[in-house]
């Protein structure tokens, strides 16, 4: 369970870091329940973020994921779900 919490935290951090660096938003201004569009995440930036998340977590993500889960909380949860699935797949 603790590991789960850590993974979600890590994913959230990856997203926040991207918002902070790529969109020049102060880290204190980033809120995990705010729509990412509010920080200026346009379609190109969303695609770049998808690619970074794919590489960081060794996953293949839908290009629409960021639009379907548009906050840091929901996006991190969705990626965590996919991560669990892929880990179960490798185990079996």
């Amino acid at each position, binding site marked *: 369970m603790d590991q789960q919490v850590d993974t979600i935290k890590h994913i959230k951090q990856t997203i926040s870091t991207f918002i902070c660096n790529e*969109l*020049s938003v102060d880290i204190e201004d980033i809120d995990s329940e*705010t*729509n990412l*569009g*509010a*920080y*200026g*995440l*346009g*379609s*190109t*930036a969303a*695609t*770049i973020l*998808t*690619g*970074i998340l*794919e*590489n960081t977590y060794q996953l*293949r993500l839908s*290009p629409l994921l960021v639009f379907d889960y548009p906050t840091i909380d929901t996006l991190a949860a969705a990626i965590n779900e996919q991560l669990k699935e892929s880990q179960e797949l490798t185990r079996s």
Partner: protein
Amino acid sequence: MFQKTQFTTSEILTAVANIPIQDSLSLRAWLHPDKKLFTFLDDEGKESDTLTYLQLWQRAVAVADVLKTCSDHGDRILLFYPQGLDFIVAFFGCLLANRIAVPLSLPNRRRVDKCVNVMTDCGARIAMAPHRTYEQLAAGFKETTAADTQWLIAEEIKPSLKLPEINTFRSLTNQDEVAFLQYTSGSTSTPKGVMVTHRNIFINLHMMRDSWSLDANSDMVFWQPHHHDMGLIMGQLLPILLGNHTVIMSPNTAVRQPSIWLQAISRYRAVLSGGPNFIYDLAVARYSETDMDGLDLSSWKIAPNGADVVRLKTLERFYATYKQYGFKMETFMPCYGLAEATLFVTGGPTRQLPKYMEVDKDELEVHRKVKSVTSQLDSRSLVGCGEPNWELEVAIANPETCKECAPSEIGEIWIHGRSVTAGYWHNEEVTQKTFHAKLQQGADKNFLRTGDIGFIGTDGHIYICGRLKDLIICEGRNLHPEDIEYTILQSTDRLKSQSCAVFSYENDEQRQAIVAVIETDRDLMRRLESEAKILRGLIGQSITETHGIGLSKIVFIPPATLKKTTSGKVQRSLMKSLYLNGELEVL
């Protein structure tokens, strides 16, 4: 008529530089029917579709046959296609049937107004799309003026069984007729369709071929979308003039995983591939040794960098990262072009290191003068965008007096030549102003006013310094500030009928920042303390949803402090300089 049986290489080269591109397709479908023309790569970089020269011709002929039964010569046909090989089939179908193709980007499900305005502007009654796209779009058009559009479903048109014949490749097409309309220049409320003629296309294509010494062995990899002039002209029409093999992928694939783009260049031994400046930055930022396993970029001879500001730092970083894989600095091809001139204007010569200048920022931005500097302080590096092709005459003119500028003076870039397009569709007034400028009073020669500001360097290269008007160029796309301002004011009721100004500047890290300055009234000013955060959120979200870009900063200013002209027009450049000089009172 006396029939030919074969073509020498020289004959082919001359022919394709003198006939409409659809006739070149017919000729090549006869000359080398089974040669692979296009390969499409899916999101993972795997081959998912191919077209030979004959297959494209047969499928396009079938589309043309259908169009001839349901439309008239010169009718506009809207093309709604996701990136893939079906688009080019429909496009050539239009050209072979002498219908005017209108390639459009797929609208966001909820925001079809721009599309509807274009449909009204060009007066199209017929649209083509794959079945899935049609289903997604048709619902959005209900209850708009575009509701009674007739749809042709791409999958329902089966390839023709005809074979090309050498005596019929030359069509009766009038070369000065419009081949397609390029709608990337106008704003949402006033779309502007650039009328590109058959002659414009083959002239511009042979300009690229000759300026860059390309031939049938110059294979390419392209990811730019086909509704953009670079993606269509360079990515999908140039291959047919050259007779090469071209690999296409979706923009999303290259942006999500730049390694798939670079690996495709390596795998297909591409000679030509490129994009706007940001893709090179991205390829550096996302570099990982494992993704580049086996990468060999030694075949890559020409890497166009255009449609946006070309940055020296980007070129240097990309070279530093990828030289170990055989990439050469001489491969970079900074270039300049615009849809109003079909596409290509300057770029090259080939096999030379990029040229650049360090110029005094103040002299450049305030006095429009070029002054070379040696110290890095207060300087701006500009990258030379090459020489024009011999087909074109390029002049730098003072935008107010319309006289040619002195050397080292900055002015508007003016162009004369056979690839300058016929103007804007059904917009005589703006066409006159933009396309029929004269350097001398009473002269016959018409020049295109590009609206871009630049100068010719002592090294003979053209240097681009910015836009005459307030147009914002972001990720290779043109954005009209009035469209963004409109969206801001519509984004929430809490703003009511305020005014705002949107502009873009380059920050200290050479990155683009787009700023919105919103004027408050007394009521909003009072509410601001508690509502500013939520307002910023709503505005930001609405802008990214509508325009696909992000605002870097949203600032509020006191009532009646937004600068306007006497006729009530927002003075964006004045607001920009106040903001940058810290002279703006911000709430």
